[in-house]
């Protein structure tokens, strides 16, 4: 094991320690240093150069990124999650022939699916799903996310919300919390389209708020265009008065005339 690898290994230990004791600042710092060090390993993606330490380097890099992903969940930083996940992904997809699969692989993939669901990026969700093998789909972590998505699509929002209790991994909790909000937004969107107005009560039930106050807060924060009056919520519909299609008579006349002229000119 050469010096660099040792250095990375040591740094990694410190990072893990910081991460476990929830010292996020120093962990982020260490992580950043680690990533810079990793760029010097040529055996890592995208170069995949052959080197004697390739296996160790790949393994440790994968570990580092896995921990980075977990850390980002802990710090509730979705951007960092996405970033780290994408950097991690080549280790899963492209190194299968060289490394033994990581035990963390499916939980992290499931997390990512969940994140996409939370962010309502359904297309990408399915893209990711397509990339998984059928055996992977049997994995509880993945299965959980897939079931959630199905419920979500069916509109069985209560099932979505109740699924929080059956998380397969403790890191999932954070996203499940966020999911509630996503569901609510979805409902709000549908209501807007479906109704002209709703009574406060109905609206509260529909949006699964326990108190009117929470409803008002939600409206003022996320949907300032809604109007609350006479005990009802009015959804201001963007009434696009479709402009009646006018016949471009002038243009047509011009065109016809020019055709006639061109015909004259045909030699």
């Amino acid at each position, binding site marked *: 094991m050469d010096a660099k690898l040792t250095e990375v290994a040591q740094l990694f230990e410190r990072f893990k320690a910081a991460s476990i004791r929830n010292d996020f600042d120093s962990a982020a710092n260490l992580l*950043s240093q680690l990533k*810079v060090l990793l*760029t010097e390993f040529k055996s890592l993606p995208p170069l995949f150069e052959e080197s004697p330490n390739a296996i160790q380097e790949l393994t440790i890099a994968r570990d580092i990124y896995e921990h980075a992903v977990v850390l980002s969940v802990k710090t509730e930083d979705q951007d960092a999650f996405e970033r780290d996940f994408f950097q991690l992904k080549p280790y899963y997809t492209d190194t299968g022939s060289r490394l033994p699969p990581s035990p963390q692989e499916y939980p992290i993939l499931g997390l990512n699916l969940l994140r996409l669901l939370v962010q309502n990026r359904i297309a990408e969700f399915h893209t990711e799903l397509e990339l998984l093998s059928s055996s992977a789909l049997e994995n509880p972590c993945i299965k959980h996310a897939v079931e959630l998505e199905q419920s979500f699509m069916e509109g069985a929002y209560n099932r979505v919300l109740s699924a929080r209790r059956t998380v397969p991994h403790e890191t999932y909790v954070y996203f499940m919390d966020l999911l509630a909000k996503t569901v609510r937004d979805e409902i709000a969107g549908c209501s807007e389209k479906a109704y002209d107005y709703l009574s406060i009560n109905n609206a509260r039930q529909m949006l699964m708020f326990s108190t009117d106050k929470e409803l008002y807060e939600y409206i003022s924060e996320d949907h300032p265009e809604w109007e609350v009056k006479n005990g009802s919520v009015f959804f201001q519909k963007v009434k696009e008065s479709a402009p009646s299609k006018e016949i471009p008579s002038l243009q047509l006349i011009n065109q016809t005339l020019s055709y006639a002229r061109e015909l004259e000119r045909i030699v």
Partner: protein
Amino acid sequence: MAATVSSASGLLAMLNEHHPLLKLHALSNLNAFVDHFWPEISTSVPVIESLYEDEEFDQRQLAALLVSKVFYYLGELNDSLSYALGAGPLFDVSEDSDYVHTLLAKAVDEYTVLKPKESSQESEKVDPRLEAIVERLLDKCILDGKYQQAMGIAVECHRLDKIEEAIIKSDNVHTTLSYCINISHAFVNPREYRREVLQLLVKIYQKLPSPDYLSICQCLMFLDEPEGVAKILEKLLRSENKDDALLAFQIAFDLVENERQAFLLNVRDLLSDPKPRPSDVPSGQDSSTGNAAPADVDMTVEAPAAVGNVLDPSEMTYSERLTRVRGILSGETSIQLTLQFLYSHNRSDLLILKTIKQSVEMRNSVCHSATIYANAIMHAGTTVDTFLRENLDWLSRATNWAKFSATAGLGVIHRGHLQQGRSLMAPYLPQSGATSGGSPYSEGGALYALGLIHANHGEGIKQFLRDSLRSTTTEVIQHGACLGLGLAALGTADEEIYDEVKNVLYSDSAVAGEAAGISMGLLMVGSASEKASEMLAYAHDTQHEKIIRGLALGIALTVYGREEQADTLIEQMTRDQDPILRYGGMYALALAYRGTSNNKAIRQLLHFAVSDVSDDVRRTAVLALGFVLYSEPEQTPRIVSLLSESYNPHVRYGAALAVGISCAGTGLSEAISLLEPLTSDVVDFVRQGALISMAMVMVQTSEASDSRVGTFRRQLEKIILDKHEDTMSKMGAILASGILDAGGRNVTIKLLSKTKHDKVTAVVGLAVFTQFWYWYPLIYFISLAFSPTAFIGLNYDLKVPKFDFLSLAKPSLFEYPRPTTPPAATSTVKLPTAVLSTSAKAKARAKKEAEKAAIAEKMSAEETSSGAASSGKGKTVAEKEGESMQVDSASEKKPEPEPTFEILTNPARVVPAQEKYIRFLEDSRYTPVKLAQSGFVLLKDLRPSEPEVLSLTDTPSSMVSPAAGGSATAAQQSQASSMVVDEEPQPPQPFECSL
């Protein structure tokens, strides 16, 4: 085992990291993988762009390069280029990838668009980064030895400094220079800029240790700098080396070929006279000059020597050489030699004319004069007027304007007969003693004839023509005199003559005014003077259509070759209310952009060809295409092919003539295919135009190289003999047979000189010729476009020595068409078979003879003089002639295989298509000064001590007159024999038909 990455998302994610090192890592890796992952990266372009825009980030250029590559893959070349510029030095011009190639091309394109604009107006500075890239590319080209590319780009980009660098650094400066001259003529468009390029080239040429004076002088001629040419010529003439003098003569001949009269006269006058310098004679005179001087004692010592001063030997040689160069520059030498050549090699077939004459109806004056035109064209420059002499009665049927043309026709026949021209025409010229009884028509015609004889070399005759113009008030004579003056003083821009012609114009007589308008144009060819607006103003004033038409053409002539400078005038004319002026505008476009293939001009002409309301304008617009495109004849048939199928007969006619003009003398197969259907068009004048054009295209193409020539000849004969054919197409057929055998079958129509410059006289001649639509006498202008297809080798004394050279092609490919046989009293249907059987036998015999002669030639080439061989050849020709006269029924002998080469004797007929086969014999006594396959070529004598055998001597040997042959057969035989004798053309006995 080796794993590859399947997605760039990891790297893209890394771009969002905060640490700059990580961003850098991501960028450089992405840059490496962009070729595979650009679709993924393209979604992240905004991120990368923001990196590029981030002033803090120190790898901005890398980001720019990456974005540029992605845009390249997306096909957004403009964005790609602008980011590539941002990438600075990271954009590696030497990288061998599609990306770099594409972007470089784009950059060069961009630069070539921007750079010329920058110089003209200060609107926008070219991006210095763009400039840097192009310069890097140029430097690399030069380093790699790709000089032509470098030069091409530099020329396009208007970077004279880079052109110079490329030329100087190239390993073969001469080839590079000549390449550069070629491209500057073919592709450099704005005239002004082309001048700059040529100036630069001249500068480079002059810096070279061994300058190529031939090319320099060509450039200088284009730049219109007679001083430079004069200086070079003088230097060469003063040189002690005889070869330099030969070179000077060669230069002079080459300059003459371009027919810029005013320029040539300037050069001639600028050559300084030899100064008597008795004091500073270098004592150690080189013996070579000493040798040269006595060798030339037979030369007439002219004016300078007559001064009486004792000139030292070197000045003597100089003055002697000077006389010769002046003779060449004035055009007299070449005209004289041409005349001798055309006379001695005349092979025109009088039988064709006889057939035409007999078949043409007595009362049909159009066909009658057409026959006279055809005769004149057939014998243009040969001085053979046998046909006229034999048919005086028939000729006298020409009345009025027909008489005018008949008389003028003599001018075409005697074209170039500078010394005797006036005495030849004397019987017809207006007598000073007022009413001499001569008809004004023949008098006017005679003046026109004088102009044709002296076309573009009118120094001697100008004064006489002016006097004649002044002393007459008859409009017919004025007409002739105006045309004559215009021709004689072509392009001299002589103010006095101009004013005199203008006076005629202002008399507002339709007939005289028309000629005056054309004449003014001829005088001012290419001058682009403000006279044009004066003429335009008068064209608006006058009521006479004829005058307007004459002026319109005249105005067009003034802008000859001015390209962009003529745009204002062209604009003015093409927008005029009067269709005749618009018609002139078409000519102006044609002449201003002659031979440039300028896209703008072509577009404009095509536009008018389909959109103008006047048929005349449309016809002319199409026709004008022929002039614009004559430097690239292959293009024309393609461009006008649609127009030739137009429903409008005028457009079809124009298309036919356009092809005829631009493909004249080429025998181009596509041109013939396009014209063929038109020769049987439903409209008579379209047939006429097509027949004439076809003749112009096919002139000097032998039946062996394109069988359609024979078909065409038979078609012409059929049309002429057909009683029911329309007069118009009949006239076309008669003219076509004239053009097909023009100048005794020894000339072709050539609008470009060998150096690819335009021949002013020829182009102007054709332009006025196309006016025959309105005015038949203008048909004679086509004779200006004729140039002899000859190889004429000249020695130091400008004499024509006898020597042989090779033509490495089957003789039948380029031989003269066989003379037609008189119809053997049987029905005409049988005629073709009779011709075939005779000629087959004659051919077989001739072949055998030629072979024998060739073998004899080869054996005797070394020790004997070539005289014997050539006389043998002469015999062959005579025999062949004799043979073909007898109708033989069966051919017993099997035809032997044709030899694959032919030995020609100086001066020889070398048709343009034959030029590439011409070789000089290795052991020949003479070598040419420059490598040329036709035209006038100065020869270096390798064995000066041996006596020279001259052909085409200019001392009259006998007083045999070619005239007065009894029958056509006899005339031909006498011609055949006269060829052997090689005598100087005699001034024919003056004859006067009772016109």
